[in-house]
């Protein structure tokens, strides 16, 4: 599965009131529903084990970057939802079978707390946070 699918599955099981396919989506955010969360993979990085020896870093992992976008008609709810997701994902340590993917995620770190993208053309509030995941290959 993709990193998007893994993160969506993990968030759906995190008691955040999010359900995959209903208000939680893989990829770029759909136009509807108004209230939803989307997880989009947008970049990959060279793994350290391509340039460092096995004595310095465990081989067999890859690095992916993804963005979580939260949207809601109410600004306060957009903020609280984004912050709840951030609390679950940021600084996550080694987690085996992450999102029932069968893979180990060694680390997820954010670039910073969620921040506002303002309102879209339908006046819905949007917040985003970017994350870097170090996970087992495959």
């Amino acid at each position: 599965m993709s990193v998007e699918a893994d993160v969506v599955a993990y968030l759906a099981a995190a008691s955040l009131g999010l359900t995959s396919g209903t208000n939680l989506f893989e990829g770029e955010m759909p136009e509807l529903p108004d209230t939803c969360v989307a997880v989009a993979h947008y970049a990959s990085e060279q793994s350290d084990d391509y340039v460092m020896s096995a004595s310095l870093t465990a081989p067999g992992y890859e690095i992916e970057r993804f963005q979580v976008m939260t949207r809601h008609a109410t600004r306060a709810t957009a903020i609280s939802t984004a912050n709840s997701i951030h609390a679950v994902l940021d600084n996550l340590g080694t987690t085996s079978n992450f999102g029932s993917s069968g893979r180990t995620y060694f680390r997820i770190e954010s670039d910073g707390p969620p921040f506002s993208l303002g309102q879209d053309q339908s006046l819905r509030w949007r917040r985003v946070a970017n994350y870097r995941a170090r996970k087992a290959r495959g």
Partner: protein
Amino acid sequence: MTVRVTVDGLDEAIDGLDRGADAARAAASEATGRGASRVAARARQVAPRQTGKLIGTIRAERTPGGSYVVKAGGPGVEYAAIVHEDLTAIHPDGQAKFIERPAIAEAATIEGDIDAAVTQALESTL
């Protein structure tokens, strides 16, 4: 019993190390600057160019601490961060993450350049 050891040239060696450290620091900063300029150039190639204003604000800047940042936006282009982060927007001639993606792509090259520049600076001064 007392053994007296005399080391000749110690002052010169310390001076050499100081010069080497200064040269290495300067070389690393210059290599970082070249890398930041390459990131900025690639960012200008992939940034959305609806009016051209956004592209005109993409630049590499040296910080007081000697590192570099690549920035976009400024007066009249306050929307730069939104364009950068909004993955849902459709751009006919560019893309979101127009700085971050080039930075990731250049990272390994920049690391290599810094390594080579520092090594050369140390070899030429020590």
